[in-house]
């Protein structure tokens, strides 16, 4: 009897799922157009899933094995169910294969259920608590209903009661797994996720690539309004990306702003965007809230302002301004969702259209517009720090091997020490280098991350024009923010350069034997990875190599490398200064203290400033250039 109903159930469910899929696709298509290769994307999707995505998922072995068993089992089972029960193909082999697939899915479901017994706070509850039961229903139901086809038990087993029970279980399983996929259940992640991988806005991220530079905004009048005000002003593949979220909360667990009690939770942000693209309130959200905010008070729709000018919108502006753009969430996201892009898109609207950059934001932007540096110093005093160093300036020498990009740290007395150390090292290695001097401008990093794309683009174009007048082989800078912008974001404005962070460059000098170090006598050292050097540019090794080569015992923090925790200084966060329960640099200093190191080596003026801002007693904060400069021995002396 069940055999007659099953094809109906299966194809019925598939049909309803297809209708749901069409409706969902329509929601995504509310977004702005985006240039994506559709067919190439779809063709690349399986590899992106099996290799790139799995590489991220596999950082948690438990869940990656669980997912292989459950997801793999489900995909295989669904194909076989269509053949065996939908089309009623009478094949023992297929039936046995289906048994195996549902069996694998069942085993996976056991582990899903186990994780859900006492779920960590980062996981969403609600419908997600139902998911293991639905997985059981689907796998067990189809396992049992397939048994007769293998010939293990007679075709007409059990009575009509068993048939009804089994039918109900299968209906439950089909509803969750097929209808839920396109009508907004937890399984939506499979449908949206697969397409998101195919049409990802940063296809360069796959196959081991890296894509971290922000995308330029077209500032022409016809592209108004600038930035993203309503969910429908994201590109369609961004909307699709939001929909792919599995609410695993890995982003939440690494977000420095969330840990500091600032009103940001990357997971909630993405879920709010999902609410926005579908319309409704956030009352159905069952994960951790934005710290200090109540769930259920915000609402939105595809064509409603995300940040309401009056009343409650989809989220509050301080949520956006809490982000340090450290990219920890993006690095950790198994669905490869681009949180930072979305946040900057919305910030662009607030700054460029509403003039609503909070706290010191507008002052910093005004300074950048008027003086080309964020603190309003006289641009003609940029070289004052090096008055006694007689550095060669490019406007005099015209050509050089290495252009030393000073960055705005040139105005900061603390960073001037790092710069002096760097100059000492370059001179010791007899490097032919020069600086731009007063012709250098802010790289535009802060302006861009505060959403002021107009000022960023002006600074970028002017810097590119200045650089085009001179001849040099490479740029070396001790500021990872300038490094990132020069290397990854100036290309869109015609500036393509070979750029090195000073740790990479000094390490190269060491490797070719141009630097010699005296034995290190201090205590143990830990190294803090700057976000814009590590996660943004993948440089984790050179600073460590360099420190070890100088004879330093390096103790890594628990959160280091790609999981390094931000110092709190990126993305203009110290400027917008959204209050939380504690300060991000204090938490990072606790990480540093827990290694027992006496010193922390840093490679970024922002990190130096943030970590030195932690009250003493605390480990000493030194730039790697300072540590290395101290260890240098003059070759002539040792001869």
């Amino acid at each position, binding site marked *: 009897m069940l055999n007659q109903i099953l094809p109906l159930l299966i194809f019925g469910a598939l049909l309803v799922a297809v209708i749901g899929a069409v409706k969902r696709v329509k929601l995504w298509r509310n977004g702005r157009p985006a240039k994506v290769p559709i067919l190439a994307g779809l063709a690349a999707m399986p590899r992106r899933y099996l290799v790139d995505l799995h590489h991220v998922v596999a950082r948690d072995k438990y869940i990656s094995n669980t997912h292989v068993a459950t997801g793999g089992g489900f995909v295989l089972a669904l194909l076989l169910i269509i053949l065996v029960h939908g089309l009623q193909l009478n094949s023992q082999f297929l039936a046995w294969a289906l048994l195996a697939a549902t069996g694998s899915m069942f085993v996976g479901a056991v582990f899903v259920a186990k994780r859900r017994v006492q779920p960590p706070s980062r996981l969403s509850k609600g419908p997600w608590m139902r998911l293991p039961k639905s997985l059981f229903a689907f796998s067990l139901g189809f396992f049992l209903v397939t048994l007769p086809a293998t010939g293990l038990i007679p075709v007409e087993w059990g009575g009509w009661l068993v048939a009804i029970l089994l039918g109900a279980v299968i209906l439950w399983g089909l509803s969750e797994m097929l209808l839920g996929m396109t009508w907004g259940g937890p399984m939506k992640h499979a449908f949206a996720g697969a397409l998101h991988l195919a049409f990802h806005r940063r296809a360069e991220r796959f196959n081991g690539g890296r894509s971290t530079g922000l995308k330029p905004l077209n*500032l022409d009048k016809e592209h108004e309004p600038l930035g993203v005000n309503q969910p429908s002003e994201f590109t369609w593949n961004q909307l699709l990306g939001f929909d792919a979220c599995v609410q695993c909360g890995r982003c939440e667990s690494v977000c420095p702003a969330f840990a500091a009690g600032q009103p940001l939770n990357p997971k909630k942000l993405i879920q709010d965007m999902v609410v926005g693209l579908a319309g409704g309130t956030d009352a159905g959200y069952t994960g951790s809230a934005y710290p200090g905010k109540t769930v259920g008070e915000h609402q939105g729709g595809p064509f409603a302002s995300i940040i309401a000018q009056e009343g409650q919108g989809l989220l509050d502006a301080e949520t956006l301004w809490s982000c340090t753009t450290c990219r920890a969430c993006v690095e950790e996201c198994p669905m490869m969702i681009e949180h930072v892009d979305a946040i900057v898109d919305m910030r662009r609207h607030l700054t460029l259209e509403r003039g609503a950059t909070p706290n010191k934001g507008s002052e910093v932007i005004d300074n950048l517009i*008027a003086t080309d540096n964020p603190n309003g110093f006289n*641009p003609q005093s940029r070289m004052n720090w090096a008055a006694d160093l007689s550095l060669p300036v490019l406007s005099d020498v015209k050509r050089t091997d290495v252009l030393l990009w000073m960055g705005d740290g040139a105005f900061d007395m603390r960073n001037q020490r790092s710069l002096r150390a760097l100059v000492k090292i370059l001179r010791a290695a007899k490097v032919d280098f020069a600086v731009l001097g007063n012709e250098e401008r802010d790289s535009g990093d802060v302006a861009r991350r505060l959403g002021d794309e107009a000022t960023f683009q002006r600074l970028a174009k002017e810097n590119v024009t200045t650089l085009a007048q001179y001849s040099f082989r490479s740029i070396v800078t001790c500021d990872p923010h300038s490094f990132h912008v020069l290397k990854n974001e100036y290309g869109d404005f015609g500036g393509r350069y070979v750029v090195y962070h000073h740790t990479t460059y000094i390490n190269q000098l060491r490797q070719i034997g141009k630097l010699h170090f005296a034995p290190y006598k201090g205590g143990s050292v830990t190294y803090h990875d700057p976000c814009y050097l590590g996660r943004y540019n993948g440089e984790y090794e050179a600073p460590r190599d360099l420190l070890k080569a100088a004879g330093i015992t390096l103790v890594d923090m628990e959160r280091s490398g790609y999981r390094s925790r931000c110092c709190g200084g990126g993305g203009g966060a110290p400027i917008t200064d959204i209050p939380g329960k504690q300060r991000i640099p204090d938490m990072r200093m606790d990480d540093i203290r827990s290694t027992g190191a006496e010193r922390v080596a840093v490679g970024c003026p922002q990190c130096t400033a943030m970590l030195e801002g932690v009250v003493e007693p605390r480990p000493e904060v030194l730039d790697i250039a300072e540590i290395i400069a101290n260890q240098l021995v003059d070759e002539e002396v040792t001869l």
Partner: protein
Amino acid sequence: MSLNQAPRVAVLLSVGQHPVTRRPRRADQDARALELALNQPNTDVVPIHVGQASSETEVALRSYLGMGVSQIDHLEVSTTREDILPSLAQHLKQLNVQVVLCGTRAETGEGSGLVPYLLAKKLGWPIVSGLASIESIASGSMTFLQALPRGQRRRVKVSLPAVVAVDPASPPARQSAFGPAQRGDIQLVPSTSMDAEITDAESDRQVWQYQVAKKRPKRLKIIKATSARDRFKAAAAKADASGGKVLQEISADSAAEEIIKLLKEEGVLSTNSSS
């Protein structure tokens, strides 16, 4: 909409200059004047600039547009030597303006701080300076707070129409946003004044020599205060006028005599210039 319901407030906007880099920008005080006007509910704000059209003017005016006004009337004058007052006064009269808000002193050019006074004189309207915040603009009068030294405020009621100059103590101007700044409209109004006046001051200015303003040397303060309160007061004090006398209820003639006497004492007027 009757004019009585929505009083028309003109805001005079000049081209500012950043003190360090000399780049054109919105003038700080004029931007504050615009901010006060924009925060006033139910008013019809008319931003006006008088001057020559140039790329610098455009940069500055666009940064005012970025504060959220859709249009600026740009009264064009033909040369830098043309007096801005006749065409400005005529335009204000045509628009039936009740209040003219402006900064106290321009950031470029002469910066004499005389424009509000000369404009008021030309229009025959009262002039009040030191506007810190507007309380209300009703039909026929305007109530506002006037900034006095040491953070003191005085409530002033002035009959309209009037020219009111803002004090640097008024609230800072809002952020200028790029999008509205690019889209806003700079409406060129050709000079309608038949008799464009070429001012003597302007021809004088041709021979002026400009130099960087330096801060005047300050006399060292000897701290006599014995308590924290006194020290704070001394630190927060604006330079007090010393000497002088308060003369009240005297005739206009004797008041004028007193002023001339003081000007002579201070060496502003030479002793033989008046009879």
